[in-house]
């Protein structure tokens, strides 16, 4: 554990964290100034005009548009500045840089299951290399959880039935607390873990030691086992789309709309096939809801993605 004194914030361990802290402390300073101003004014009035003092109590105007407008405008401008600042930071938090390494996360009452593209699996622990952007693609098997790493100043709800994502670049090696921040039932407070930030070399070493079959390869096996290939193989007699090169394409749907084939699209195609039916096909694909867990779906997604590259897959 990194040393955390009770009154201080956790260390800044991601590229975003210093920006968040700066915003926080600037807002804190502003707020303290404003609050101190108001409290001092009130305190001073309370002292000066308490009953029995000989203060000037001549009539004052019952209102003044100028004063009102001043103290509407100044806070408003302050608010707009803070808003602009925070929203830029927020947009940055939510836009993963191109080339970030994907890591798949499944929340489940009450544990975190993590799958790396290289096939490494972890539970309640996430190993990441220092200084490289990591892109978490997350979903939940049951209820809503929230992936929270205080040292990174980042948090994202993990919602069943959809993919949410979170990205960060760790900037300090060490072990950091991972919490579940969305109430999810009995053991919510125990649903924690660690994020271990390693030097790239150490990380590569870790990867090698724990690497098995890559996620896509596991997905390829599953593709056969779950029976997908029965329809989706090019030799299959069933009229089903060939999934090669599907990922990232724009897919025309039967109802006339066009959607981008991203992670969620593939996920929904497997779990809720009726939701979006590809044009030119009949809606005969069965739903795999209940038969495949979210982590298995992630393997399939990884496999289908992998078939975009050159010479990938059958």
């Amino acid at each position, binding site marked *: 554990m990194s040393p955390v004194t009770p009154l201080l914030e956790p260390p800044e361990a991601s590229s975003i964290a210093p920006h968040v802290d700066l915003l926080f402390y600037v807002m804190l300073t502003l707020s303290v100034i404003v609050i101190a101003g108001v409290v001092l004014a009130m305190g001073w*009035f*309370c002292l000066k005009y308490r009953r029995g003092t000989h203060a000037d109590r001549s009539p004052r105007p019952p209102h003044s548009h100028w004063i009102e407008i001043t103290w509407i405008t100044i806070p408003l401008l302050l608010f707009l500045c803070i808003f602009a600042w925070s929203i830029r930071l*927020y947009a940055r938090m939510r836009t993963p840089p191109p080339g970030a390494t994907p890591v798949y996360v499944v929340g489940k009452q009450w544990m975190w299951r993590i799958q790396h593209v290289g096939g490494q699996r972890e539970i309640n622990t996430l190993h990441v290399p220092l200084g490289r952007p990591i892109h978490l693609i997350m979903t939940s098997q049951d209820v809503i959880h929230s992936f929270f790493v205080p040292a990174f100043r980042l948090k994202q709800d993990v919602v069943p039935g959809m993919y949410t994502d979170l990205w960060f670049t760790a900037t300090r090696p060490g072990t950091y607390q991972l919490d579940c921040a969305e109430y999810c039932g*009995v053991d*919510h407070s125990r649903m924690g873990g660690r994020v271990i930030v390693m030097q790239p070399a150490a990380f590569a070493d870790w990867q090698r030691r724990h690497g098995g079959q890559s996620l896509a390869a596991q997905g390829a096996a599953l593709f056969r086992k779950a029976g997908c290939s029965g329809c989706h193989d090019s030799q299959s007699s069933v009229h089903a789309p060939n999934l090669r090169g599907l990922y990232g394409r724009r897919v025309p749907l039967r109802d006339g709309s066009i959607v981008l084939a991203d992670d969620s699209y593939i996920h929904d195609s497997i779990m809720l096939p009726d939701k979006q039916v590809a044009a030119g096909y009949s809606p005969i694909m069965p739903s795999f809801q209940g038969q495949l867990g979210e982590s298995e779906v992630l393997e399939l997604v990884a496999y289908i993605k992998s078939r975009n590259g050159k010479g990938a897959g059958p």
Partner: protein
Amino acid sequence: MSVISPAFETPAPIGHRSFYDEGNTLWSWLTTRDHKRIAILYAISITFFFLLGSLAAAMIRLELVTPAGDLWSAETYNKAFTFHGVVMVWFFLIPSIPVTLGNFLLPLMIGARDMAFPRLNLFSWYLFAVGGLFTMAALLAGGVDTGWTFYTPFSTMFSNTNVFLVIIGVFITGFSTILTGLNFIVTTHSLRAPGMTWFRLPLFVWAMYAVALVMMLATPVLAMTLSLIGLERFFGVGIFDPAMGGDPLLFQHMFWFYSHPAVYIMILPAMGVASELITCGARRNIFGYKFMIYAIVGISVIGFLVWGHHMFVSGMSLYAGIVFSILSFLVAVPSAIKVFNWTATLYKGTIDFTAWMLYAIGFVGLFMLGGVTGLFLAATALDVDLTDTFFVVAHFHYIMVGGSVMAYLGGIHYWWPKFTGRMYSAAWARFAAIMMFVGFNLTFFPQYLLGWAGMPRRYHQYDPQYQLLNVLSSAGAAVLGLAYLLPIIYLAWSLRHGAPAGPNPWRASGLEWLTDSPPPKHNFEVTPVVTHGPYQYTP
């Protein structure tokens, strides 16, 4: 003790028969249509619920003294904060000021003989009571563990506690809220005394009017959303369940469309009370009366557009986050106007530090602190870090306990002579107010630090490094809890032993002070005619 403001032409003659004298059997109370008696029925009921909710708070705080989850089981802890939240929000704070002070004072302040629909008013109380019974039944049957926000799919598919009973309870109480709001709106529109124009209404009445509007337009959404949860639990079908193609975020949108306006249901009345107290306590007319009104209306309307700030990390779209964030900043502007105007009202006044004035000043300070930390949460990038931590818990307790509860108690102290005709011990009252202020800050200030340090909320056990602050917070809760008991004691004592108050012990202006304390059954022997604005103070 009888300085009647010169603003009103027809002071009521001093009568001898108060509304308490119209029969005192239990039956006469349970069938009453007198808004004043209904207010008292409500006051008793919500005090009961406040005590229940406080016991749950004591359970929470006792558990959090140690990092290990040792005192209660995790299930019990989860049920405790759920029950605490549900009871405090729906059975104490949302009704609190409107149904007691509002019910009692609204007709008096506008010079009416009663509410527009007295029977409906009584019916609302019965609905409230029945809703409360359902909620207590849920407690007796084992409690609920969903959190007061009932997030799906946990509440629909995974919790096997008595969600259904609580939902029915809240649903029924919701109807009570809607009907109360309806009554307030119609009363304010049609029963104002001659000469009582809109811009002569006391700010408390404006606050009641605005809050009634919010109650009517927001509560139906909650009722139906909760019904949908009930439906899903019963039939295993539904639109919030991702397993069936439903969407949990849809629930959050619907819930917060109600629940954010609901937080303004909790603060607007408090602002109304504070305006009355500060003007009287400083013997100065409110500064910027019209701006105060615009601020009230502004808060209640813009307040409907910001609900998504509870969903910044929920998976909602980035663009929606931007819109909700800026709107949340905008809604803070009218609150700022109010804080500044209250402060300016003190200027060149003659300030008496009665207990209720202490509460009012405490209210302004604590509300400001809570509100400003609300801005931290509205700043999306900070919310990503702070959401679902104790920072949020501290934010809303500062506003709800430090703000609304303080204002409610201030209002009770201010109008107590009017309600009962008796004075309470001023010294004890001041002592309790100060003790409460100290205990409150000790309880909740450490929670800001906890939140910034990263302690998530709704945690039954936590990491040891957070212990010191948690112990401080629990100690504060003990002080705060004891301070809450004091008013109950000395106010009860005053009922028998307090000095008679007379119609206007604080020399306040406002129609309610023209009539007897306690007022006669129909409030005014002669309908007053109003020729001036609401505040007629000279220092």
